[in-house]
């Protein structure tokens, strides 16, 4: 008997068929991985199941009985819980308040907080998910927040748990812990749907694998019956090169020099605590770390979006410590921001306007404050061709492009400027394999033409395949430096999560780091 069965689910968005007659079933005590690229329709399908979207066709069966799920409430009542990619937690509220939200114990509308707290602790002990019930969500780490999400689903009586890209925000160690939790949930009789686009996770955690592509189920298999290459082929529909060819490059003069930099974060706490390193022309230096360890603040300081509290930044020997974003662009720093929709593009602008953002004051695009549309469109047309941006014309608004093409616009603008230093923050986040390949090739092209590249990425695969040197950042300090080929994912993961402590920086910067490298 299947606890959940989908039959011929179809979901149409304007211009896109997101789900095309998708069928699948889930047994009790089973972990099914739903594998597919971004945009394959995995999340849409699960949002249909959870009642967040209504299907245009097909049926959902729970315990073999057909059901109509029109709202999350109904899904919850049917025992379906979901942990979303973006957490559905209310930051200023406590763990307990978040977990009981919508199903608060109490009478006459008055919440019985003592009982609520007890129930949370009970669940927490039963499933081995330790959390402080009185902590505020905003004070918890991402991994902890995810636990709260899982507890929330369990509190609501979930028998089927849908996890949407659960490891995207976790460290390798946290991910391993999560897999343990998932195993114990299944042992308790729950069923889990695990949405992901990461091959190795699928292999290690699932009982059964369902692969989606372009809104359809294209295959079903078991970890024992396949390997990574086979899965990748199924997922993409062709053979993929899992790593890029890195060409030869000469490391030349020092471009960026960071000396004992201290930067404060949004909450006024020190986020970058005395970081020193350099980036030379012709090399890619990668900053590896778990999200929230000071990378964002460090980058913002380098590109002029945030004022350092102390320390020094130099670009080709020129002091840019207190340069504004504008001065820093003019000095030759380009920046592919982490969040392209928020930081990278003005979605309501057309492509031509977006392609000159940052250069819009300079000749030939403008002289003495008057803009020259013809110069702008000429450049736009050239960059659209050079960077293979798929669009009918530069008239199109940036909001109408796909994620991959939007990123190409940002890349085209930032590289087209011909910078001295390229700072690329998570340049491939949310992109499909084809677009990732493209961005990687562009970054290496910059390197080969003698530019300095500072890459920040949470994807270790990306770091390992692109970088000439890898700096591991943890709690605002650089804790280790590796040359390309010196470290593997395990080692990086160990240091990224504080395995090596933070003592290196305390003892005195990069020299020390280089000295201790040999000890590994």
């Amino acid at each position, binding site marked *: 008997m299947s606890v959940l069965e989908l039959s011929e689910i179809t979901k149409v968005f304007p211009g896109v068929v997101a789900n095309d007659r998708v069928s699948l079933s889930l047994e009790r005590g089973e972990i099914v991985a739903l594998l597919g690229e971004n945009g394959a329709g995995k999340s849409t399908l699960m949002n249909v199941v959870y009642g*967040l979207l209504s299907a245009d066709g097909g049926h959902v069966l729970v315990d073999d009985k057909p059901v109509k799920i029109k709202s999350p409430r109904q899904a919850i009542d049917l025992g379906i819980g979901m942990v979303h990619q973006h957490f559905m937690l209310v930051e200023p509220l406590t763990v307990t308040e978040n977990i009981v939200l919508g199903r608060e114990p109490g009478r006459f509308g008055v919440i019985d907080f003592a009982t609520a707290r007890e129930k949370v602790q009970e669940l927490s002990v039963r499933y081995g998910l330790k959390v402080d019930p009185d902590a505020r969500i905003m004070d918890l780490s991402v991994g902890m927040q995810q636990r709260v999400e899982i507890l929330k689903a369990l509190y609501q009586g979930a028998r089927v748990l849908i996890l949407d890209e659960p490891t995207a925000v976790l460290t390798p160690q946290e991910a391993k812990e999560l897999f343990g939790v998932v195993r114990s949930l299944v042992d308790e009789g729950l069923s889990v749907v695990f949405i992901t686009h990461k091959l190795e996770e699928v292999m290690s955690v699932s009982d059964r694998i369902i692969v989606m592509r372009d809104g359809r189920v294209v295959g079903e298999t078991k970890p024992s019956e396949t390997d990574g290459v086979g899965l990748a082929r199924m997922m993409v529909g062709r053979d993929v090169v899992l790593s890029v060819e890195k060409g030869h490059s000469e490391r030349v003069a020092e471009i960026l020099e960071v000396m004992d930099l201290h930067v404060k974060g949004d909450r006024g706490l020190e986020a970058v605590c005395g970081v020193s390193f350099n980036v030379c022309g012709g090399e890619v230096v990668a900053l590896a770390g778990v999200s929230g360890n000071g990378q964002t603040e460090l980058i913002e300081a380098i590109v002029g979006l945030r004022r350092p509290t102390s320390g020094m930044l130099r670009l080709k020997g020129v002091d840019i410590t207190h340069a504004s974003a504008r001065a820093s662009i003019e000095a030759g720093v380009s920046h592919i921001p982490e969040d392209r929709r928020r930081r990278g593009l003005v979605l309501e602008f057309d492509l031509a306007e977006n392609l000159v953002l940052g250069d819009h004051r300079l000749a030939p695009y403008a002289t003495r404050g008057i803009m020259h549309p013809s110069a702008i469109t000429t450049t736009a047309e050239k960059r659209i061709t050079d960077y293979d941006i798929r669009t009918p014309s530069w008239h199109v608004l940036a909001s109408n492009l796909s994620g991959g093409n939007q990123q190409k616009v940002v890349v085209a603008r930032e590289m087209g400027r011909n910078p001295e230093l390229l700072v690329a923050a998570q340049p491939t986040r949310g992109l499909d394999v084809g677009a990732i390949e493209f961005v990687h090739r562009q970054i290496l092209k910059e390197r080969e033409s003698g530019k300095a590249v500072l890459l920040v990425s949470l994807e270790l695969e990306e770091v390992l395949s692109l970088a000439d040197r890898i700096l591991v950042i943890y709690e605002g300090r650089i804790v280790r430096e590796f040359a390309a080929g010196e470290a593997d994912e395990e080692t990086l993961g160990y240091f990224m999560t504080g395995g090596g402590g933070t003592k290196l920086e305390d003892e005195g910067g990069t020299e020390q780091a280089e000295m201790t490298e040999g000890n590994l």
Partner: protein
Amino acid sequence: MWGDIITPDLFAAALRMATPLALAAIGGTICERSGVVNIALEGIMLAGAFFGTVIALATGDPWLGMIAAVVAGVIVSAIHAFASINLRADQVVSGTAINILALGVTGFMMERLYGHPGTTDPSAMLRPVFKFAAADGGFLGTIWNWINGIFLSHTPIVYMAIIIAIVAQWAMYKTRWGLHLRALGEHPRAVDTVGVNVFRGRWVAVLMSGALAGLAGANLTLEQVGSFTENMTNGRGFIALAANIFGRWTPVGSYLASLLFGFADALQIKLQIFRGQIDIPSQFFLMLPYVLTVVVLAGVIGRAVAPAAIGKPYEKE
């Protein structure tokens, strides 16, 4: 001279003046906590003041007038709720439209009903709840006169405002409604995914703010002035919004901030009596609440954290 200024009735006046601000500010707090900006408080208050007077004049009963004011507030706020929640209109723009609409409707109806613009005839008013005799002299007598003067001399809505502030504060942190409300303004999708109806929650909040702002209007006409004058709210809705911010989006905080503004207003009126000794043009006193509001906003708002989802229409995916 200062002995003549600092008297029980100065503080009593502060409480009185604070009442319409506080009611509207608490309304604003509830509304904004749910994620809807309510700049329409001004217009809602005006509508409440007008319809309160209309019914009080028609029936001779100020209590019916008060109920009419609340109902009018709810109806006007329903327009704001529909525009900003269902139609996802810009909430500030919708509020602006309501402020203009209230000005137009009250003025239009006034001429239709009474045949002239300006001010209505005086209506029946709500009377003070208690009536205690003043004591004659002595230390205890003076204390009694101060307590009696400041706290026991008021009309019903003044006490209602205090009770509402306390009850709303309790409800916001101890009840299901309050928890949902606080969550709504921070992360409506999270509330939606646990099966709580976002639209309904916001509707209720906006209507409550309408009821409270309507009651504030009733206090103006049926307790303070006794008649309706066109545009008589004169920016109180905006000061109430500032009081809500100053009070950091909590009901009791809103009340206390309103009390501060009310005190400034009471002092201003009191000082006008001493024109001879203190020769400052009355306009300077009249602008005091507005100046104070700017000062408050300049000093405090930067550190006060607004609900995260405020002003953003909720859209299901």
